[in-house]
């Protein structure tokens, strides 16, 4: 009976350690700090930012410069 209790206690300690390790691994996993819906929203926002900034740069790079009038 005592040995069983000791075994149980040992197994419980191992279980606790494993679960703690699992907790640490979960904490270090990237990208799960928000819910899937929030993450999708953030992704859409980022895509929109990139698109807008690309458009802005394209606009200014292709902006019409000075029209030099030809000498008559």
């Amino acid at each position, binding site marked *: *009976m005592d040995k*069983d*209790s000791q075994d*149980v*206690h040992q*197994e*419980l300690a191992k*279980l*606790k350690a494993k*679960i703690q390790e*699992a*907790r640490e691994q*979960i*904490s270090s*996993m*990237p*990208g*799960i*700090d*928000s*819910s*899937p*819906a*929030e*993450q*999708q929203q*953030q*992704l859409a926002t*980022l*895509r929109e*930012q*990139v698109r807008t*900034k*690309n458009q*802005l*740069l394209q606009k*200014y*790079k292709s902006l019409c410069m000075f029209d030099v009038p030809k000498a008559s």
Partner: protein
Amino acid sequence: IFIVVTPGVVTSCLAQQQPEATMAALAEKSTKDRLLSVLDDLEVLSRELIEMLALSRGQKLPQPGEDVQILDLLVQRDREFQELMEVAQQQGKVHQEMQLLEKEVEKRDSDIQQLQKQLKEAEHILATAVYQAKEKLKSIDKARRGSISSEEIIKYAHRISASNAVCAPLNWVPGDPRRPYPTDLEMRSGMLGHMANLPTNGMNGHLPGDALAAGRLPDVLTPHYPWQSSDVSVGMLPPHHGNDFGLEPPGHNKENEDDVEAMSTDSSSSSSDSD
């Protein structure tokens, strides 16, 4: 070691199953929080099960169906955990894509900043150029309004240099009464001197006192200048735009004319020889 089964734990785990509302509330939570919460439940349930099994050897179970309940909950929680892990895996991939997008956003930001800097520089350069051009236009306009004929300026220059003001005459020796400035006698013998009838004061020490007092020069010592003629009333007139004024007095001598002709070719022609 006494292990006490706490029915409250099972009840709380059972309670977490039911309501859709709490699930909705849980859905707002981050995946990490949900995973940790399920893991806590798993830990508690598995401990309870083990403790129950250990207890059942010695004592009678207080509630006969409780072990089945715990097992069912455990299986359910494990299923949830597996589903959440799949969601977490998907979120990890999305996170990688977001990191790439963030890098691209940073690059675009730096490009925009660079463009902004260049535009500011161009604006500064253009503003400076426009300002300078405006100033130049003002100067041009001012010059046009105050334009003088180059012929007149050249004539003036010739007259000034013809009076030996810039260089002594070639035959000048010490003792020669000629000076590069109008002397006292010359001033007195001019228009102003005759008009004012100024008394002589002997400032010019070139001549004998009598001649000085009389205000006359002996003919021998009378300086002879190109612009002087029989008519002493002709003097320097004030400058006047576009007028051909008396630069060439009626009795001007040929010497002066020759000097004008030779000026452009001979650098020493500005001082004319008298006598």
